């Protein structure tokens, strides 16, 4: 197994994860692109030792199957990156910032859980029913 390629894959994953953890959407896209490169490299490692290009009839060719996987993976990663870029472009155009804000719904859940307001709403409803029954 080729140590150089394995280590390079590790480096690309490290950089990719670091970028994906950022707040800026475009950096997240960059990070995913980096992870895509890492994935293709991993397939290359699976390809084994280098050989002559796989054209028939030939001997000692490089394993063609991981290559076919890698080829489609490259195109998919590209298409995926385009979609995310469109998302980033849209977000920037509408909000004027290239950042992922905290999810407001989650923030509300957090606040509600801290304040126990969910309980109060429920108690109120229960009171209403028992009032109905006591008529």
């Amino acid at each position: 197994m080729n140590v150089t390629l394995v280590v390079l894959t590790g480096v690309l994953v490290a950089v990719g994860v670091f970028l994906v953890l950022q707040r800026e959407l475009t950096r997240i896209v960059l990070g995913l692109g980096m992870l895509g490169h890492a994935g293709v490299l991993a397939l290359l490692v699976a390809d084994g030792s280098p050989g002559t290009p796989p054209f028939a009839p030939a001997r000692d060719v490089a394993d063609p199957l991981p290559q076919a996987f890698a080829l489609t993976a490259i195109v998919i990663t590209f298409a995926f990156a385009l979609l995310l870029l469109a998302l980033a472009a849209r977000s920037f155009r509408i909000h004027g910032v290239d950042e992922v804000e905290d999810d407001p719904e989650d923030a509300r859940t957090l606040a509600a859980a801290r304040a126990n307001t969910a309980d109060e709403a429920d108690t109120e409803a229960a009171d209403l029913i028992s009032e109905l029954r006591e008529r």
Partner: protein
Amino acid sequence: MRALVLGLIGSGVLLGALPRRLGARAAWAALVPFAAVTVWAGARVGDSGVSVERLSWVHDLGLDLVFRIDGLAVFASLLIGVVGLAVIWFSGGYLDHTSRPTALVAVMLVFAAAMLGVAAADNVLTLFVFWELTSVCSFLLVGHEHERSYARASARQALLVTGLGGLALLAGLLLLADATGSTSIHTIVNQAPTGAQVSVALVLVLVGALSKSAQVPFQFWLPGAMAAPTPVSAFLHSATMVKAGVLLVARFAPAFGDHSAWRSVVVPIGALTMAMGALVACRRHDLKQLLAYGTVSQLGLLMVLFGLGEPTVTIGAVALFGAHALGKAALFMVVGTIDHQTGTRDLRRLSGLGRTMPGLFVIALLAAASVAGVPPLFGFVAKEAAIAALLDAQPLVGWLVVAGAALTLVYTVRFLWGAFARKPEVEPTPVAHRPGVPLVAPAGVLAGLGVVFGIVPGLVETLVRDAARAVEPVATGTLHLWPGLGVPLFASVGAIVVGVVIGMRPLRVERFLPAWRLPSGEAAFAATQNGLRRAAGWTAASTQRGSLPWYVGVIALSSLVVPTVVLVERGVEVPELTVASSVAQVLIALTAAVCAVACAITRRRLSAAILLGAVGANVGLLFVVQGAPDLALTQLFVEAVSIVAFVLVLRAQPVRYAPARRPLQVRRALAGLVAGAAVVLLMLGAGSDARPVPAGDELVERALPEAGGRNIVNTIIVDFRGFDTLGETTVAAIAALGAMALTAGLTRAGHVRRRPAPLLDTANRLVVPSMLAVSLYLLLAGHNRPGGGFIAGLLAGLAVVLRFVADPAAPPAGRVGPRPLIAAGLALMVTVGVLGWWIDGDFLASGYTSFTLPVFGAVKVFSVLFFDIGVFAVVVGLVIAMLESFRLREVAQ
């Protein structure tokens, strides 16, 4: 039965689809399906045979819809049909003030289907499905006026109580099915297994039945369910759904009545519910609440009668079941009419209605008297039969029931007094106008049936006896209006006299009764619900922090670290390692690593994008070293197009990223390092499992003879794994369309026409056609030489990009739009696949044809070439879609 169930559901769906403005009277369309149910069941009366219908569903799991149409099913179906007809008739008049009346009636139709299913289900899973379906329909109906918070709360409570009961029922039924080895209820009851497992199962089944039929301690949901519009209360919460538990008990009691787990639960609870329900009813002021507690009490009585499993009692119990359904439905409709005409159901505000609405009073009197068991009405005949048999078989329980009958009279008199009497201290209630026929007649018909069946019980005797014998083959007894002088008659008459005498003083009864509450599970229910809510809130608060980086970090690390830990625990067998295959490889890898790290560190947006491209280019070079020319070409072309995309998006944004807090970045870097290390370990671990033979060797052998291509990678893509490629191309197509949809409408295309860049434009006249020619060659030759649809498509796309760069305001590909191109490409690929299927019997099977052309000589044309052309079209479309998406932004600036 199958046809009825499906027909009811279908007509419910149709009715629900009717336009709203048709109003309440459109509800009368539902009379047709209910008439069908009535006719179907009516035609089976007297037919003592049993038929089984089966509707295969998930047969291998024992999950079939099996209906066993016996006497009890026919009896219940007839009740559903008749009460349903009356209720629908009533609804057409009553619902004129209710929002979405047709939707309400539509759900009632679906409910009726579910109820038929419960009545006739033989398979335990069938029973469970329909049982829960009635709960769901009840939820929708109780919560029909969902603008009101108490309607929502009541609906939820009813659903949770009956739904949880349904789960207990399922568990019980499955245990019983396990004990007998059969999912047929008929078989389970016939075998009547015993043992500890069966005891547990019976208690669980009873939890389901008791919760559905609103028995202590589950009774609290039923009065709450009175938030439903009155037709719903009349249909579900008096006549049908709440009787599901009784039906179930009726089916099981003959087999398990002697079982201690059964007897020690069902009879005491039934008796307690009977007594307490009646007492609470004596203190209610809302007429509907009074009736609801009356129903709870009557259901308790039915539980006792059926639960004993005494053969002699069954006929009386079945008759009482019917009498109560007819009478109670009528009473609910009477209350509905009072509410509709006066705007109140509070007996403290009603006075003199007996004089202003005499017809309604007579109907209410007859219906109430029948429910209370007063001669000469059907309820009397039924109760008399039951009491006579019970006093004989179980005297203690019998006298308890007699006492219960007296209590029934007390609250029945209270009801009639409260609704119709002239109360000196209350102003006579004004009645706007006389109620219309649909508000009175349906209740009148049901009350009239009570009179007719009371005077001539022979009319229903066959129906009742067949129903009783369906569960208790040795059921004996007859229905008589005149039972003959004897203890039972004296007991009944005594109960009636005592009940009426006490009931005539409703206010004193009310004062005398302490403010008892039924022992109720509601507090436990509320505590459980609040506890769950608090736990859920706590869980959400401690995990849902709202921060995307946090979520992504957790996902990334757990998806990498968890398998790594497992791998290390099992021991990594380090594979044979080589440092590198060549010096070039080391140099290229080093460059890539440096570029990657720089990409992470730089604060300039464009630099970061270009560094990412540099990493990609170096990866492409690694492919060259590896001996993978197709990959290298693809990678380099993709990087070129990507850079353009990034530039188009990023130039609208600030040059630099805002600085992030240092500790945060350190943590993120640490997460990255852990992830990278995990991947290295995982790859080493995976490598230790390497098979000695490369996976593709077989394909190398097969490529030329089978796929007719020398480029093995290409044959894999378009032939051996063509289906895979079709899927991946589809993903690319969706991404392209998605990108266009996301950016559509962001800016209006006010075309700012600029002159094309002169030098580039001129160069393009030469370069673009050459690129397209090379692209065409790569496409056609790709099966044998480096190339193929993906690569050719990317190159053609690059040609379009060049044109765009020279003249950004012009449409990048002339009149060729990305959407038609993508659609045509996918269509071509699918067509090739379907043709292969048609000709060769396999989707995407390949073939070729050869012919001779004058100049080119012998030509072989492979079907996969057209597949590859499809790929080509989609990829070109993808690039054009990218330009179209981001070009709009160009125009706006």
